[in-house]
């Protein structure tokens, strides 16, 4: 009888562990906190002025909007520099032609938001960041147009 009790405890523990792995059952710690955008006042658009990129563009594969290790490495360098002058950054997403237009805008905005989220989580203040998704409404002089470009304001 005691042996059955031990088996029961193990079975219940395994079942609970499996439940945690099911999609949609993430714990509070795993849930991302989404930071709402602050005012856009004072930010310039690359459509209006010749803005200088703060570093190389972050390239994305296919229709992914997930940051890779390469992206994080590039952003970490930016984060390290930020605290010295605290510049403001506009994160502008672009896609190549060939996608449905509206999807291209949303995907490019979503990528820019992913970059913003990472920067905020790594201590860049939210008020210093703005995003925009151009899709392929605005052409970019770049070898790849499936990118997020970080423009220093």
């Amino acid at each position, binding site marked *: 009888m005691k042996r059955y009790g031990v088996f029961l405890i193990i079975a219940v523990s395994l079942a609970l562990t499996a439940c945690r792995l099911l999609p949609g059952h993430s714990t509070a710690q795993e849930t*991302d906190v*989404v*930071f*709402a*955008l*602050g*005012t*856009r006042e004072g930010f*310039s*658009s*690359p*459509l*209006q002025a010749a803005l200088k990129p703060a570093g190389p563009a972050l390239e994305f594969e296919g*229709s*992914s*909007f*997930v940051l890779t290790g390469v992206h994080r490495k590039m952003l970490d360098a930016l984060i390290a520099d930020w605290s010295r002058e605290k510049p403001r950054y506009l994160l502008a997403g672009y896609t190549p032609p*060939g996608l*449905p*237009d*509206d*999807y291209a*805008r*949303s*995907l490019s*905005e*979503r990528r820019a*938001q992913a970059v*913003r*989220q990472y920067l905020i989580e790594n201590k860049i203040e939210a008020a210093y960041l*703005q*995003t*925009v*998704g*151009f899709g392929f*409404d*605005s052409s970019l002089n770049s070898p790849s147009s499936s990118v997020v470009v970080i423009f220093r304001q």
Partner: protein
Amino acid sequence: MLLIPPVHALSLPAWLRFGKDAKSKAASSMTQKTVAVVAFTGGTGESAQRGLLVELTAASEFRLTNENPDFSVSGSSVGGRVTARVVNREGKELMDRTYAAPGLDENLKALADDLILVVTGKPGLATSRIVFVSNKSGSKQIFMCDANGKDLQQVTHHPHGCVSPSLNADGSAIAFTSYRSGFPVVQVLDLGLGYERTVTDTPGSSFGASFSPDGNRLAVVMSFLGNPEIFVTDLNSNSAACISDTTGAPCSPSWHPDGKQIIFADDRGTGPRLYVADVPATNETEAKLIRWRSGYSFCADPEFSPEADRVAFTAKVGNDLAVVVKSWPSGSARVIQAGGAVHPSWSPNGRYLCYSQHGTLYVHHLNSGTRTAILNGQGQITEPRWMK
């Protein structure tokens, strides 16, 4: 049999004729309504009658005959102004209306559409408009034309361009995304007054505006919350409610004809799929959000047909984008046009789709499968939307 003159061959009873075509023609002639256009009086009466016959012949919504017609239209025309009266077989008056626009052509198009609505119960296309984006002028701007690609006019002239247009139901206003300030904001242009107003100027991006059937609300994508979401904005109160609840990349919202649901595409990490969200009537109303299984793993630009029995959308078929129509809420899907055709939009009568393919604007007749390039060589045409 071959020696029988065509007139005799055609006079055989329907049940004696062989082949699908003969059968369907016999069936359609039995159901097709007949209309007589009686002589119009007045100085421009003759021109009016001739012009109306041209409009109705092009529309092909019913048979024009003077022999025992189901409906008769008569009237008068003086100086381009047209008055018309429609009666049925029993002599009951169904319509009596005067058209006083500046030009005879404009009046005849409006009369043709009204007549088609009275006879068939479905709207005509003579006065309907298609809005689209073209880079003809050097930057992306909104243009508009009729269902035949005629009456082409540039609607916007904004610096840095305008995209993502949507016409309201009566064709009196266009919502679109403008880059005038360098950032995407949604604006509404009153076509009658020429007055523009900004609906959303929120941080992040705003795009994909779509008028509700009653014209009082807009569905629009905004990202000020920290990720893109679909919002429904009330144009009278300027309030907005989020209906999408996603952390993905939602886009291209479009209304159900009853105004109670919105279909949109959302990429939650595995490519864009189609979702349908209820539009809550009040804050307390429970709103459902479901994924609609279209059968394709990459879908965008969905739009309900006017009768809400089908949905047209862009899908990836093989390596190419294609226009697909699937029965709503369930049923079979059919590829209407492959090879890079995108952004389908229904005609008001639900018989045609317009879409763009490699920069050309097409109108596709769904029953016959024939299509016409209505605009070609007018820049790179994208994002067409037909007035509902």
